[in-house]
């Protein structure tokens, strides 16, 4: 039997072979006393108790919820702004001309580079402050951890892929579909909602996927910077400073898993909409 022809299940499990070998190698090499890294089972132990307070700075679960809340908030802002802007830019030459220069100039500016500026602009305020919940100020409450500066850079990181994806989607709408809709008596609004948007959906989802991936990278980097004291990125840096490499590696695993989860989740959603646009023959 040729290697290409491995039947269904073992064939699909083939992808796990290399990770397992790496894990084995790690286990073997970490056994000796001279190794810097803790063996995998120590990392696993940290992961198996995600609710346990670590290094007096909160549990993994807490850190993850802080990071995810930040992302969700920032990304929602990016979608709320990016999709309408993308639709406008894709649908009208006026808006494309008005906005493309600023988008093209702003896009390459790294979100991380904007963190200090945006903290200054938002005066270090958190969502709790914005909502007028000053009483929460001194407790450990999640609203306290949602710094507006942080949310802003997540918005920045996510918004451009969303804009460009949406614009691309609108621009790739087939002319004949718009024309057919017109001769079938559809108004401008009807054409927009029932022809433009469904045609653009797969590209919009592609933009969303890129956007949330960017957000996830931005948040980890931002949390690792000094001045932050919560989130999974923070826990990663802090455990490194305390040489608690088991916690540090556990953070890395968590970050990888959540990143993959975001991307796969949106991909699955997008797949459904892609299915709807399966090519005409």
């Amino acid at each position, binding site marked *: 039997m040729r290697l290409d022809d491995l039947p269904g299940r073992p064939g699909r499990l083939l992808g796990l072979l290399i990770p397992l070998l790496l894990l084995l190698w790690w286990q073997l090499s970490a056994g000796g006393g001279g190794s810097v890294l803790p063996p995998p089972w120590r990392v696993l132990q940290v992961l198996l108790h995600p609710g346990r307070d670590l290094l007096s700075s909160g549990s993994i679960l807490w850190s993850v919820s802080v990071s995810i809340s930040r992302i969700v908030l920032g990304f929602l802002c990016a979608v709320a702004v990016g999709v309408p802007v993308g639709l406008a830019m894709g649908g009208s030459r006026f808006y494309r001309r008005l906005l493309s220069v600023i988008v093209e100039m702003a896009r390459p500016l790294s979100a991380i580079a904007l963190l200090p500026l945006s903290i200054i602009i938002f005066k270090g305020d958190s969502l709790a402050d914005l909502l007028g919940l000053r009483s929460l100020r001194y407790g450990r409450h999640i609203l306290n951890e949602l710094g507006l500066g942080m949310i802003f850079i997540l918005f920045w990181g996510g918004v451009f892929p969303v804009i460009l994806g949406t614009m691309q989607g609108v621009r790739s709408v*087939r002319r*004949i*579909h718009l*024309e*057919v*809709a*017109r*001769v*079938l*008596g*559809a*108004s401008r609004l*009807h054409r927009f909602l*029932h*022809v433009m948007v*469904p*045609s653009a*959906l797969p590209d919009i989802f592609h933009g969303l996927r890129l956007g949330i991936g960017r957000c996830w990278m931005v948040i980890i980097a931002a949390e690792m910077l000094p001045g932050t004291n919560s989130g999974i990125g923070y826990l990663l840096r802090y455990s490194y400073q305390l040489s608690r490499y088991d916690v540090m590696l556990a953070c890395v695993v968590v970050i990888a898993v959540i990143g993959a989860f975001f991307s796969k989740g949106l991909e699955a959603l997008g797949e459904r909409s892609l299915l*709807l*646009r*399966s*090519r*005409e*023959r």
Partner: protein
Amino acid sequence: MSGGEALRLEGVEKAYRTRTGQVRALGPVDLELSRGRFLCVLGPTGCGKTTLLRLIAGLEEPDAGRIEVLGGPPEVTRRIGYVFQQAALFPWLTVSDNVQFPLRARGVGSTERSRRAAEMIGLVGLEGFESSYPHELSGGMQQRTALARALVVDPELLLLDEPFGSLDLRTGQELQERLRDIWRKRGSTLVFVTHRIEEAVYLASDLVVLGHRPGRVVRSQGVDLPPERDRLSDEFTELLVSLRMTFEELVMEEGPEG
């Protein structure tokens, strides 16, 4: 719905700008059609047939001349139906939803929508495929769906741009028969553009032959063949041959590449 004028064109001209200059696509063309007729516009490829339809539909404006459609200026009105050369179905909608699209655009309620869609789907012979998506259909079935979609709002004037041009002969002939039946039952006015002489002779109550660039009317006549047409009858063949000769003269005139 017979009586009255469906279509009147006077000295209509249209040119397109291309990179190398202007190309006269059409005209001047004069044309008249009463309501309830089935007009076939016959002409070789590139004679401006599609342009003519687009002008009538109001998708484009003429450079000169006057067009009157259903007693008014041509505009994209809801009284006109249009079937394109490609089916151009919305791939994200099922057959039934595609057919319901124009009804939805007119704000027709959902029960009424599905009732009328089901009726049209039956009329074009697509029962059982209501919930299929366009990519699951053959070319002929896609074109049936497009026909149902255009007919579902019962347009007073239906424009068809070589709708069966890409289909195989058998499917094309079956759809021709269906279209004739629908026309006879509904009494609406049809303008059918094609380059296939046989198709035109089979369908038309009125015939117009367009010549090459710029497209102009070189022959215009009524077709007095019986409603049930026999493709093998002498009269049918006679008209076919005579039209073919007109076509050949056109080609001679224009040279091999027109």
